[in-house]
């Protein structure tokens, strides 16, 4: 389910008068993904598949492009990049990802041309992507420049009426909190705000950092004379993408979002400047006292909310999860959206008749909310039912549909819910081709605990992977409906089953034509053995069955010489009943007239658009506000009369 995005490190650089500076990077010793390096791919695309050697080649992946040049005898001499520590456990603090910090600093602090744009550079298979942010020309970060805050705020505020419903995982809460914190830029606040780490107030460095910080904020940014005035900061994500699109995902959803938020904080309270100063101070001290690398990293993480936030982002996002961080007391969540969660592609549009399936238990979700009782989101979650369409929920909650839609989208975006067709006992469900069967062992106890007196997980799966039946037939009594629907939700949530839908077309003039000659011949003849390209000799041991045994043969005709007739004139399928040709209209009319049920005759034209092989019959009832039982009855009737060609698929 989770895609690998090949994230290997996060770095933050600043630029001031003396030059660019790599302030912080995490992890201390970034590990290359190896197999994702493009060097490796170069080798793979040879016709030879060397999969035997793959494990050993992890490390050598990066060097392979170099071989190209070494082949032609480059005289360049340079230190071999290595990613490991020295033998004595001291890491080479002057190099990151195998490159000298100086080179990286120069490379990753581009000129003003890149300001507030995507910056992407790829070094030997490692792609660095970021969103550099510059101070205005006079070196100030103040908010006089109204362009960006407006932009940021526009992103923050979505629907004013829903201002209070944010979960803890949303950044929208930021505005009031951050404003409250603006006045006190003391480290304690930062410590409290980023509740996950402990600050060390007695540390000398942090004291110094504090004094600088306060002076910076108090004098505002008017004191541009400060030599070390930061003119740019740049958060860079290093990754080894296996596809180019990953890079734009990392940029769009992580790097850019983070940079914008930091820019906002920087303008408010010089947050980035203060934090970077603090980090540099710790770094300098660590260098001075020859502190081990992991110790200095620890100090940086403990001493700076920014460092901690970057670490969180890196760890969560590289694991494909959602990172919830605090910057200057302001909450922010970043993630790279999963493919299935994207609401942009046509199929996943949240229409009034779609339903929602929560991916976590209600009480778990409610606990995660900060104002669980008051917010509309909590209300929505509490009252949510997977069996109801959004439209119905909007009615029953007495909430405008747009708001329900917004809440649903919010839950989907943060991976708390997925779009489904509302669960219904008249729908059919079948086993999912991606069912995590190896998880059954683990899930059986969980399932057993939740649905103690009901059929076991394997039993349910067995029933649902057999003959396609309406789910209602599995439910023994009316009283069992609710728990069985819960089971269904559980099974869908864990990707064991999915809905089986019926599609079909109308066909005209069916013929009862049936060659009795053929069938009688077939029955009387034994299969004849033969040799063709695809037919091997028979073997008792073989489980695969060869052609001779799989065909009911014709005896005396060469297949190649058979005349293939045109599509039988005795069956005509109307593929697009919404836009029928003249002939088709006549046929449709003929079908309509032959229908015995007067109500169906009346509603016939209403049903037509669904007989195009693309719309599921299960959608008809909801979309056209008809009774499900009625629609089923009609479909069965049409089928009985031979007017329908149907197939089922997920």
């Amino acid at each position, binding site marked *: 389910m989770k895609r690998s995005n090949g994230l290997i490190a996060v770095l933050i650089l600043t630029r001031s008068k003396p030059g660019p500076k790599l302030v912080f990077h995490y992890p201390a010793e970034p590990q290359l993904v190896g197999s994702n390096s493009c060097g490796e791919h170069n080798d793979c695309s040879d016709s030879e598949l060397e999969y035997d050697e793959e494990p050993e080649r992890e490390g050598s992946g990066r060097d392979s492009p*170099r071989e190209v040049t070494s082949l032609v005898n480059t005289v360049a001499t340079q230190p071999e990049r290595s990613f490991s520590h020295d033998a004595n456990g001291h890491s080479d603090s002057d190099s990151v990802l195998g490159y000298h910090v100086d080179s990286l600093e120069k490379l990753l602090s581009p000129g003003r041309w890149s300001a507030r744009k995507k910056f992407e550079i790829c070094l030997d298979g490692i792609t660095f992507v970021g969103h550099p942010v510059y101070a205005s020309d006079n070196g100030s970060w103040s908010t006089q420049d109204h362009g960006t805050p407006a932009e940021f705020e526009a992103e923050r505020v979505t629907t004013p009426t829903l201002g209070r419903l944010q979960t803890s995982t949303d950044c929208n809460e930021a505005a009031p909190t951050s404003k409250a914190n603006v006045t006190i830029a003391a480290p304690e606040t930062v410590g409290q705000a980023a509740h996950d780490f402990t600050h060390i107030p007695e540390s000398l460095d942090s004291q110094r950092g504090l004094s600088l910080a306060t002076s910076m904020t108090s004098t505002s940014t008017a004191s541009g004379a400060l030599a070390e005035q930061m003119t740019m900061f740049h958060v860079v994500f290093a990754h080894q993408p296996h596809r180019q699109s990953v890079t734009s995902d990392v940029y769009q959803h992580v790097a850019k979002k983070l940079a914008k938020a930091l820019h906002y904080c920087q303008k408010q309270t010089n947050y980035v400047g203060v934090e970077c100063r603090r980090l540099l101070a710790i770094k300098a001290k660590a260098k001075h006292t020859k502190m081990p690398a992991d110790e200095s990293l620890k100090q940086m993480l403990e001493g700076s909310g920014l460092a901690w936030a970057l670490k969180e982002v890196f760890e969560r996002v590289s694991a494909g999860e959602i990172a919830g961080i605090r910057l200057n007391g302001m909450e922010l969540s970043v993630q790279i959206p999963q493919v299935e969660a994207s609401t942009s592609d046509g199929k996943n549009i949240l229409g009034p008749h779609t339903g929602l399936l929560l991916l976590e238990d209600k009480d778990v979700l409610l606990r995660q909310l900060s104002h669980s009782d008051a917010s509309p989101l909590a209300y929505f979650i509490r009252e949510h039912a997977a069996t109801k369409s959004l439209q119905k929920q909007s009615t029953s909650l007495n909430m405008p549909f747009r708001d329900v839609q917004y809440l649903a989208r919010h839950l989907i975006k943060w991976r708390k819910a997925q779009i489904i067709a509302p669960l219904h006992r008249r729908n059919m469900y079948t086993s999912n081709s*991606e069912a995590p069967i190896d998880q059954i062992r683990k899930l059986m106890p969980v399932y057993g605990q939740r649905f103690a007196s009901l059929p076991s997980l394997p039993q349910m799966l067995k029933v649902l992977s057999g003959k396609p039946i309406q789910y209602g037939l599995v439910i023994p009594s009316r009283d069992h409906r609710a728990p069985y629907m819960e089971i269904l939700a559980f099974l869908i949530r864990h990707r064991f089953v999915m809905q089986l839908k019926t599609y079909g077309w109308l066909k005209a003039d069916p013929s009862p034509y049936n060659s009795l000659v053929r069938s009688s011949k077939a029955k009387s003849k034994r299969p004849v053995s033969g040799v063709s390209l695809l037919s091997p000799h028979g073997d008792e041991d073989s489980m695969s*069955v060869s052609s001779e045994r799989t065909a009911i043969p014709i005896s005396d005709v060469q297949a190649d010489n058979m005349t293939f007739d045109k599509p039988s004139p005795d069956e005509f399928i109307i593929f697009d009943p919404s836009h029928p040709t003249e002939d088709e209209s006549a046929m449709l009319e003929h079908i309509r007239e032959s229908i015995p049920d007067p109500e169906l005759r009346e509603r016939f034209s209403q049903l037509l658009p669904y007989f195009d092989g693309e719309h599921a019959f299960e959608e008809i009832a909801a979309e056209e506000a008809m009774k499900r039982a009625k629609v089923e009855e009609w479909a069965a009737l049409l089928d009985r009369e031979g007017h329908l060609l149907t197939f089922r698929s997920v």
Partner: protein
Amino acid sequence: MLKAVFYTRFHPTHGPSVIHQYPPDSIVPSNKNTKTSDLPSDLENTDNDGATAPSKDLPEPLVTFSSISASIIPAYELCDAPLSICSNGYRVLGLPVSLEDAKYERNRFTFNVAFVLDESTDAQPWHRIVAKTAAFFTALEVEDGVLQAEEESVGLKWAGQEGYPARGVGGKIFEVLEALVGQVNGCGEACVRVSDVHVLNLRLESERVAPPEVKGCEVPMLVRALPAEDLWTRDLTLLRILPYINGVRHVQRIAEDADVEMELVQRAVRELVLHGHVRLLDLFHFQAIYVATAELKNFTESDKLQEECRKYVINTSASSQDDLSTGDQGDSATSNRVPKLEDLRNLYSSLTTEQPLHDFVLAHTTQLTNIDIRRFITFGLVQNLLRRIHKYGTLKPTSAQFSSEGASLSPVKLSTSKPKSNEAAVREFDRAWKRAALSSGWATPPSEPRPPLLMSGRSFRSGAGGVEIGEEEEEVLRGLLDGRHCFDEVCVAMRMAEGKLLGWLKGRQGRERMGEVVVVCR
């Protein structure tokens, strides 16, 4: 689509400079007034964009060279490795090369041949081209000193200078770039000759994704003829196994029949898959269950596909092949025997999870007349009209495993776990060391238990008492029943028919030795 190529180097006095570019004006616009000032002089100062504003009547340069020059000609440390940067909606791919030699000013000659693509273009296929071009230019300079010598030729114009490009003044680099862009954009290939020894051959080839490893139970089927033998050197394994690839035999069977080691067969088949000559099918047998997919819509709507299907699935038996003269009979007789398209459509749509294939065949005998059911299924699979429903087995956790494995998940304490009997403990211990022996002694890595080939003697006999499974096989079976291996795989590895295996597992012996098995389809 290659937008531009430019050759740039670090000039001892001018700093990073574009010497050649194609198309002309693509990177450095020729600016008549500021002929010299458009050569950026300071490597460090990257903030000086806008300094080289193009004059109005000239096309806008693709990228501002001064902005990215620090990355195109980077620190020595970063040279000799691919480096690309995005700017202005373009992606500039390069491989900076730094040559060190006393003959050069500053003892170094640093250059880069950079390729400009649209940012959205997939750069992956270009990396090799860039690397090869860089190697070619390196060879030109190292062996013949072409690059350095060219700059000394009289009348040479640099990119951006008035009168660029100056043709026929000795240098060939511009012509190389010109030919390269033209040929690569024209036909995806390029062959540029500088001298008899220096020929640059390039081909733009998108990378194929390596297919997953081939399983023993998969059936390779040729879907595209292999190139003729004189055009394509076939390796020995392929020569050996090719006659056995017929869309019916599974890989393990091919290995046995051709007497080739399984790993080699897997490798050869995988390569055929990579090059699109082979599709892997699942094992065809009558216990298999197939269901229709949404693709059936396209099949039903496409007469062409249905005709193709009919031609393919129609049964060709040997008796009909021996006498061609009987072929051209009256139409009335033959048309009766040709499967109707209507039947094909109905047959595909009536495959459901409900019935395994043998029931399906029995239920549709009439419609299936003259249809080779195996070919019918194969066609469905190749065209993605059908999906095989695989059975998976997973061992139900015993109460002991329950509490250990599911501890984190279920706080329910299982009080029912009785103290194990002595005999059971001995058996458990026995199994543990066997498992250890199996995983160490075999060539397969222990992390991913793969079915070892049980070539040496079959330890199960289907005697009067049914199936017999030896202790080693039991261990293998246990490893396979983890919910990740479908029953085809298990059956092939165990060399048992599905029915027999299921019978054994559900029988008294199987239950005693393996515990309860959960069988799930998907």
